[in-house]
């Protein structure tokens, strides 16, 4: 089994989880995860173990794929808004959490969900997460703290 195959097998769940949290949509995350591993296969020669772990690199590829998707989706929405009045957004799929937590999560932006996914779900250290997001460590910590506070506030209201 090649290095890529081993890495894909080992980190598929992490990439998928990250994308589920980032996009808030399981089916979309599944599509993007497939696209991520296709792109990772093409770019595998660029992976450098000295610059980060396989998991971080794969999540970085996944992030790029997701951002491309968000951009194209944004363009599509703009075009449709010009043509017809906007429709209510699709109901996001659940994360397998309690209904209160699901409701609270819907109040977070993709950026806030992303930092939770990286720091809490994937348990990346602050430096790796910050490097992946392209921000400073303190900024990353602040962003996580704000996201969790927002979540707690929403849960407090819900409870």
């Amino acid at each position: 089994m090649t290095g890529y195959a081993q890495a894909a097998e080992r980190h598929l769940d992490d990439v998928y989880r990250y994308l589920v949290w980032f996009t808030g949509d399981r089916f979309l995350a599944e599509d993007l995860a497939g696209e991520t591993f296709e792109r990772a296969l093409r770019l595998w020669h660029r992976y450098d173990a000295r610059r980060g772990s396989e998991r971080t690199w794969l999540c970085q590829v996944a992030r790029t794929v997701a951002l491309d998707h968000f951009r194209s989706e944004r363009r599509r929405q703009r075009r449709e808004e010009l043509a017809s009045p906007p429709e209510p957004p699709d109901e996001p799929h659940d994360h397998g959490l309690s209904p209160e937590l699901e409701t609270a999560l819907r109040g977070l932006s993709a950026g806030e969900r992303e930092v939770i996914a990286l720091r809490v779900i994937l348990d990346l250290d602050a430096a790796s997460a910050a490097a992946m997001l392209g921000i400073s460590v303190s900024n990353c910590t602040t962003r996580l703290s704000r996201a969790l506070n927002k979540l707690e506030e929403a849960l407090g209201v819900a409870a």
Partner: protein
Amino acid sequence: MSRPDLLGALRAATPAAPPELRQRVRELATTSSPARRRSGWRLPLTGVALAAVAAAAAAALIVLPGSSRPRARSAPSVVAAQAPLPRSFAAPAPAVSPALSGAASPAVVLPAPSPIRAQSYGATLSLRLSDGSAVAAAARRAVQIAQALGGYPQSVKVSVGARSGSAKIVLRVPRSRVSEAIVRLSSLGRVVGEHVSIVDLQAGVDATGLRIVRLERELAVAIHEPQSAATQKLVAALSTQIEGLQRARAATLRSARDATVGLDLGTVAPPRHIRTHPHAVHRGPFHTLGRIFRLAGIGAVYVLAIGTPLAVLGVLLWLLASRIRRRKEERLLSRS
């Protein structure tokens, strides 16, 4: 719900990848092989970039005047670096003074005057000699040469001291023998400059001759006409005009018969830098090494001077582009 409980609940809800996705990724990994690492192109690219920068710096060193060429320090080089007179048709000046070494200067080959056309021919030679007595001797010899060739000195100004001297001599030499005169005069010292000017006078002489012929015809007609006061006045005017033109034509031809040769004699200027240190005379391999280091240092300074602003600009542009990209990403994620 406390924060640990919240984090625990979030961690507990960690969906696993669906079997379909896992199967798809496995097939992808087994059926396709990842692209191979393209090794060996980045390094040559960097090398080519560095070589290009070095070549540009070297070109700048060569092109920029007086930037890199080490100035001549030794006595012969200093002599060669003295500004020569303007040379229209110049033979390369020898590096070592024949007057100093005792060898004769190579014969100067200047364009010769035309033997069949009237021309105003002027030549100037600048010669350097070892000391004042040599200048005086050369001045005497120059006058003798001119006289031997049938010419004469038009003006002679000689100023001679104990160790230095100068002379400005203007000779008139028959045009037919000017080439020989230049060759002989150039052997008096080291030639550091020569200048020649040739102005063709034949066209003007021919035009004057035609005009004289025409006026003579008119004069002949006027003489054979019945003489009246007006006719006599015309004959007198034509005669005066013809005489004037003939005189002018003769003067032109007379002046064209002799060529003017200017001779600028002077002594060798003392070297600007006289080194007394023995290492200055006996240059060994370390001298060459020092010159190489010096050139390398100059090249490095150029590379730094040109490359640093470009590098700073590149970094600033990169930072700006990163910041813009980050802002766009944050806006996008805050809306999603």
